[in-house]
């Protein structure tokens, strides 16, 4: 049972670690502001596919790690990821039957919500950042979602058929 569990969890953990790497990888200037929220996309995907194992708690822990890695207010990304994980899990049955175009639109809304929470907390904490640093990741994240979705579906299918 534990071995089967480990087998099922391994791909998720691997993708999350790779996502963390992509999130903190140093990028030059403009690319930095256009970096997609990899971990937010991964949280949306796994919370949609495996909502019982990967839900708000995992999202929160990932967020705390991200806060430490970014040096932001401890809990800022945690609360944002937690909220989008909640919405995803809440509507995961609906989202599973969406066609890809509609799902992408939903992901856009979720990413916008994610960035809005970050923006809002920054506002309360009096941290100012240019608007592109909020909108850039939403746009690039939405554009990259279909490819990421297909890639992750492949991983998931292979992991499950293997187990």
């Amino acid at each position, binding site marked *: 049972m534990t071995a089967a569990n480990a087998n099922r969890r391994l791909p998720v953990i691997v993708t999350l670690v790779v996502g963390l790497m992509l999130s903190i990888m140093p990028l030059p200037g403009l690319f930095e502001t256009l970096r997609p929220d990899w971990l937010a996309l991964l949280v949306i995907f796994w919370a949609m596919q495996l909502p019982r194992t990967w839900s*708000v708690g995992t999202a929160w822990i990932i967020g*705390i790690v991200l806060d*430490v890695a970014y040096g932001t207010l*401890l809990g800022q990304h945690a609360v944002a990821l*937690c909220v989008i994980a909640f919405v995803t899990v809440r509507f995961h*049955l609906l989202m599973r039957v969406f066609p890809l175009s509609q799902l992408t639109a939903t992901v856009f809304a979720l990413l916008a919500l994610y960035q809005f929470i970050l923006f809002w907390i920054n506002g309360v904490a009096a941290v100012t950042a240019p608007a592109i640093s909020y909108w850039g990741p939403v746009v690039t994240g939405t554009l990259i979602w279909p490819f990421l979705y297909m890639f992750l579906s492949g991983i998931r299918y292979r992991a499950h058929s293997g187990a």
Partner: protein
Amino acid sequence: MVASRRNNTNPARIPALGLRTLVLIGVSIVLMYLDHRENHLDGIRKTIGAAVYPVQIVVDAPARFWGWLGESTTSRNELELEVGRLKAERLLTNARLQRLTALEAENARLRALLEARTRVRDEVRVAEILAVDANPYEHNLVIGVGSRDGVYDGQAIVDASGVVGQVIETGLLTAQAVLISDADHALPVEVNRNGLRTIAVGTGEIDRLDLPFLPNNADVRAGDLLVTSGLGGAFPAGYPVAIVDQVTRIPQEPFADVTATPAAALDQVREVMLIWSQPPVGEGTEE
């Protein structure tokens, strides 16, 4: 029980999802508050940071490799530039080392100041010069004491060898002072030898004062010591101001042309003394 039964009947339902989310949001808000208001969470940050460290190492590895590659293939030209930069830096460091000598001289000057302090009866306090005005038309300086220390406008400033100037503007922690060599400054003095009173006026040159109001027949010679007369009220009497340099008597003019050299080294002082003829306002009479 109820939850598990519901789970069985409705597999889509995730138990206590909303509650868990609310709790986590609450915890996050508390964390953010603590993190923002005080820095009590440094320990947590460090612990999680240590866990993330391997990931950061892996992420940095390609960048490090590129850096190493860049260094290994640096052109000779760039290396020469680098050597030039390093040489300049070494020169700068040597210059800093020379400050040690300056500090030794400062020590000697401070000792001189302490001796001067035993000589004067008024209340004095040593102050450091923070800045010298770059304006070539004014001789101003800023000292590191202010109204908090009981400094007041018009207060006399001396150094180990003579009068330096007086305070013209008092801030809380600093004060601006005008040197006696400023062209707008005049100071009542007397010739130490015979008590002849006159006024020493600044010329705008750091090493020269004028005594424009001495008649041709006045008893003043080169080498006379001028001391403060105390008549103006600002300066206490008896502090050396300048030494008469040169006396030129022009028969057809009513006044002699007398110049003097300030006793204090106006352009070399680092520390000055402020004089309170009465005890300083801020400090009372503790000393």
